[in-house]
């Protein structure tokens, strides 16, 4: 094995210039595959968070807007209102609203479940998303939108919220961990749509924030704003903050719930607001995913084709260049199989350099902000794509010498030095 590494290294050094060029090209392919997988992920990122909610038997409710201090009978405001009435419900995903004041400025509070926070991250302008922020006891982590109240990332403020079932105000230490990029999609209620036609994508609208004040002709301050703050529902529950449904509740039922019982539940739920089956939503989402993938298909095919052609070209040139060396190795007692192993190890060294190079390029591009307005990220699937490119390169670097050597005699190979 050490001999292969040694001769592989020597082969790499012998054709250093060519191998470095191949490494550059390979790193371009690696980066390209990361980008392509990222674009694919970006088109599917609105489906993942609601994947478990859009089931065959689930329902979506748009509860009527209820003042949080009044909870009339038959109205749905909190999870317990549902769980108390319908023990068959085994999962609730909702978009909640809460009143919040940070450092003297009112913000529209939007709260998501921990699962939603873990599975969906909006584009941030600064800081980190809630799932990545360090939690500290007694401190509420929040992410804010653009605002003119100087509520910024890294600072701690005094936050005021309304206590649940009490109506009184209470304060909590708030840490702003991130700031959402203006215009980024966030989990929100789907608006102005025919709800039989909505898909998961409609629950993630692009949110344009404005925040401005002016003095009117009476000398009074007038505010035009839709600034918001996002917090975790579980964190708000911990401090006992009031948060209520805001027209978006997904319910999942126990598998054993009979159709009759489901109909009964739906009828009861209708007293609280509009009720829709999630099955059509699921179908619409699949249709949307299909169109998104179809949209990406030419790009994916193009990239794939390009990766294959380029890898073959690189391996062919490399094999052709090293052919004479193989002839010598063969004359000195090596078998073709061993020569191919040497070629594979030489390619492996090129691949290692290509990986380092692509990581370096990505880190540099990131630090210069070149990737800030793209969907590029590095995760499991991107890593899989990189490995696929590397494996393809390794396979072709093994196959190519076999194809080129064919039935040629070593003597002919050594002699052919035109």
């Amino acid at each position: 094995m050490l001999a292969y590494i040694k001769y592989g290294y020597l082969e790499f050094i012998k054709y250093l210039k060519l191998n470095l060029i191949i490494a550059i090209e390979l790193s371009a392919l690696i980066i390209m595959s990361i980008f392509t997988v990222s674009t694919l992920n970006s088109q599917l990122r609105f489906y993942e968070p609601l994947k478990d909610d859009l089931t065959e038997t689930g329902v979506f409710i748009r509860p009527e807007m209820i003042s949080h201090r009044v909870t009339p009978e038959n109205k749905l405001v909190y999870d317990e209102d549902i769980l108390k009435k319908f023990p068959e419900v085994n999962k609730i995903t909702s978009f909640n609203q809460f009143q919040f004041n940070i450092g003297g400025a009112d913000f529209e509070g939007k709260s998501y479940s921990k699962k939603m926070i873990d599975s969906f991250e909006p584009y941030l302008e600064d800081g980190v998303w809630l799932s990545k922020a360090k939690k500290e006891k007694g401190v509420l982590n929040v992410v804010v939108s653009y605002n003119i109240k100087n509520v910024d990332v890294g600072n701690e403020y005094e936050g005021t919220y309304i206590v649940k079932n009490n109506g009184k105000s209470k304060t909590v230490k708030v840490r702003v961990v991130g700031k959402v990029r203006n215009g980024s999609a966030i989990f929100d209620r789907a608006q102005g749509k025919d709800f039989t036609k909505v898909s998961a994508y409609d629950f993630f609208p692009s949110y344009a924030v404005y925040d401005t004040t002016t003095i009117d002709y009476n000398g009074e301050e007038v505010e035009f704003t839709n600034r918001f703050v996002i917090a975790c529902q579980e964190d708000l529950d911990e401090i006992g903050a009031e948060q209520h449904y805001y027209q978006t509740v997904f319910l999942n039922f126990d598998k054993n719930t009979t159709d009759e019982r489901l109909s009964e539940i739906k009828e009861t739920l209708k007293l609280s607001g509009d009720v829709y089956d999630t099955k059509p939503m699921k179908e619409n989402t699949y249709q949307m995913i299909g169109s998104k993938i179809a949209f990406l298909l030419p790009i994916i095919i193009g990239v794939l084709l390009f990766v294959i052609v380029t890898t073959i070209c690189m391996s062919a040139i490399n094999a052709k260049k090293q052919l004479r060396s193989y002839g010598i190795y063969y004359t000195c007692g090596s078998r073709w199989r061993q020569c191919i192993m040497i070629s594979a190890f030489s390619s492996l060294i090129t691949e290692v350099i290509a990986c380092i190079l692509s990581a370096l390029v990505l880190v540099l591009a990131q630090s210069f902000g070149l990737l800030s307005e793209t969907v590029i990220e590095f995760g499991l699937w991107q890593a899989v794509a990189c490995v696929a490119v590397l494996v393809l390169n390794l396979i072709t670097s093994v196959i190519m010498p076999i194809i080129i050597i064919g039935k040629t005699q070593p003597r002919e190979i050594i002699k052919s030095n035109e």
Partner: protein
Amino acid sequence: MRYILKNIKLFALKNTLVFILFLVSLFVSVTVLLAAYGIYTEYHEKADRDIQGTEGLYDLEGNKREESDIEYLLFQQGLDKYYERPMKFEECRGFFYDLGTIFGDKIDYIDFSCLPELIDIDELYRKSTGQTYVPYISVTSGYKDGELAVPDSFTTVYGGRYFTNEDYRIDAKVCIIGFEELQKHNHEYMDLTEENGTYYVTTNGVKYEVIGYHNPEAMAVTVTPGAAPGDCYVGESFDLKLKEVPTADEYRKFTELVSYYFADLISDVTKMPTANIDTQYFYNTNIWISVIIALAAAINLAVLYQYVLVSRRKTLAIFRLVGGTKNRIRRLYILETTLISSVMFVISAIIFNVAIKPFIIKVYPYIENLYTLKVYAIMFLIYMAVTVVILNIMIMRYVSKAPVNLMKEEN
């Protein structure tokens, strides 16, 4: 030419695999170049036309959607507090210029409808038809290259001419009117007179020369923002039409501007559709992919051609020894690559047009009419220029070597 063809023949026979790979690389590069241009255009067309910026021209059912203009009405039928606190045009003349700094060339037109006097706004709308019989001043403009300019739409006139960019620049006291209606209802607020065959409209003490005519039934007297009378009242409507969907930040700045000029004279800033940041980022990534593909394709071709040059080094050395000048050899090689690349471009473009384009159009509907002969010609020129420059550098490096060194070089 004979030598070039012989060279190509030798290239194909002696390095068949490399020759095939060279052709395949050329084909893939041309195809990717054409497709990348299509995707890039798709994005811009989509951004221009699609109000939502997400689903394209087709809805979930696959039905073609109506194209929508990005038209924005800040207020209609009067400012909310028109009577409580009347606003004169002079107070918001700067709004036109400030809108230009926010939206720039995205502006199609800005239209402010003002009333010459503080009159009962309800009088404008007759109960049955909604037809207005009080002439109003329409202050209209577009925006180009950092200045107020002729708008892109609604510039049709029934007679005479529309404003010119010069009229906007010098704040010319000229106007366009709905002639018949204004003559029929010659109103106390506006005076239509004729002097030596030229018509003039006088309103708010300012005399405008009539240069064109609207629809005869229109009651508007259209003027440029710089020439509009400062003491007319902002009262009827404000209309802004954009050619492209604004970004979230542009919308934010717009609300700041509205707030600055109108404070609480309007109840709220109506929501304006903004460009979907996800779509924007998605296309930015695709543009990066195209750049990397172009880069990798260039390296690929360079590596392949370098191999060809290396394998020809002895021929090259002999050529030099028998009197071939560097320039002549360079020209021969350049012509050879140009010939191969040109033929491959034509073949690739034909295959793209016949086999690949119909498939791509299904996914990117906006590019349907994109690939004209002119586009192919421009692409060809760009492609050839880049190919020739890259290969020229490589060839020069090799040709410049001394024949002895070329002979001595190892594979």
